[in-house]
């Protein structure tokens, strides 16, 4: 079994990127996993349907922390990413038209790990907060 605690996950967990409040956010959402106490708030600044900045804050395990860091890094390092494009498509159950489970799969590819079923909620918490924010 490959460890999910790979060096890049540990690095993002120790030193998360884009941590903090985005004062001029246009879209924001907070999600929590009551079963483990983790919480993630995603802040997005969207202009003309394009994400121009992203931050997050909250608390949680190393996996949800690294996932939040990697998600916001992805959003901010791809200037001009449409909120409905690429790997971050809205899944149908979150009100969007595309992606579905594929988008979660794509997100796990971005993380570069394969969490066990018991840890999926940790890894996907920021993605679900992102979905809620752009809903």
């Amino acid at each position, binding site marked *: *079994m490959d*460890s*999910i*605690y790979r060096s890049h996950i*540990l690095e993002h*967990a*120790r030193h998360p990127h884009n941590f903090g409040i985005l004062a001029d956010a246009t879209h924001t959402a907070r999600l929590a996993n*009551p*079963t*483990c*106490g*983790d919480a993630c708030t995603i802040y997005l600044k969207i202009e003309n349907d394009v994400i121009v900045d992203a931050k997050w804050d909250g608390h*949680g*395990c*190393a*996996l949800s922390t690294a996932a939040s860091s990697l998600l916001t890094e992805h959003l901010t390092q791809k200037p001009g990413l449409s909120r409905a494009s690429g790997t971050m498509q809205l899944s149908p159950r979150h009100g969007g038209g595309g992606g579905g489970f594929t988008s979660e799969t794509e997100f796990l590819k971005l993380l570069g790990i394969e969490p*066990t079923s*018991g*840890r999926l909620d*940790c890894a996907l918490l920021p993605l679900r907060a992102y979905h809620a924010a752009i809903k």
Partner: protein
Amino acid sequence: MEMLGGRTIEDIRRDFPIFRNRPNLAYLDTAATSHMPSVVLEAMVDFEVNYRANVHRGLYPEAELATNAYESARAEVAAFIAAEPAEVSFTSGSTASLQMLAAMLGPRLKPGDNILVSSMEHHSALLPFKQIAVERGAMVTTVQHDADYRLDLTTFQLMLNNRTKIVVITAVSNVLGTVNPIADIVQEAHKHGAIVIVDAAQYIPHLALSVKEWGADAVVSSAHKMYGPLGVGVLYIEKSLGLTLTPSNLGGGMMLEVTSSITTFAEAPHKFESGTPNIPGVIGLAAATRYLSSLGWSNIIAREEAMTRLLIVGLLSLGDIAIIGPLTMDNRIGVISFTVPGLHPHDLATILGEQGVAIRVGHHCAMPLVSSIVPGGVARASLGLYTTEEDISRLIQGIKFARQTLS
């Protein structure tokens, strides 16, 4: 070398096939489910391959064998908890037993009546009784644990009154490892005429259980936590209470006569067993009680107490670990919850799991209790007959490794 009924811990380990098949497994999650010794598996397979038949129905030899084995199992399980066979029904588990009790007792509640519970209750005990309280306009009142994670009997006495109709109390907390003073609680509750329901799921694998000594009205437990199979529960209902209860689960095998206008229920325990029971599971449970008895309670208790002490000392040796439960060995068993500063319980459990150390983290189906102590949940190591010094050492080393990994 520790001995259990004349047998070494190595002998005990060999009784459990899981440790042959998973030699790297340090299993510290017995409070979630225990493993089964070969004698339990063999008893169930014997039924399946030699005399599988439904019980109380067929008139052919195999059916007779099945019925005899099932009723013999009932007698053995009853003796194991110092009950009479007619007071022991089999269900699918503690959860089902508690729901049946709530459904059968709910109609007795009137608006303003009170159900008294402890802060240590598992969701399976808490939720059905919360539900019937809502339906009947009754209240649920909680006796809180004290700073040492124990129930204070004086507080309990103060909260009892003549509106207290039902007391639901766990004999052992599945989070704290605390053993509650059930006999005293029953005595106090009965002064007010309350019915006392005891959740013994975490008690029965570790301590000798006598429902008569407790004096409880109903006691539930699950086979899979006491080295038996999944999907079998023991529901003890004291004889005089059983006479007054109308079954909530209706179906085959639990009535004497059914006409277009009349249904006459069978007597206890059969009226509480609707449909085909888990026959191999019950036979396996009886084998588990024989296995436990063969080792001897004083031996089991001494061995588990030594391992519990070792685990607590090991955790405390790490310096800043907080143990969520009593620190003294009196009235506590080897269910040990803890938090590691700076380490999320889910990260700890995953890293330990990657090293073959199995623990559980989270709220342990006792969210009101755990979230009042640590919002994000706690880690829990729980011991069994087969726990070794090496298992505990690997846990302690694993915690150190997890801290290094994530620091």
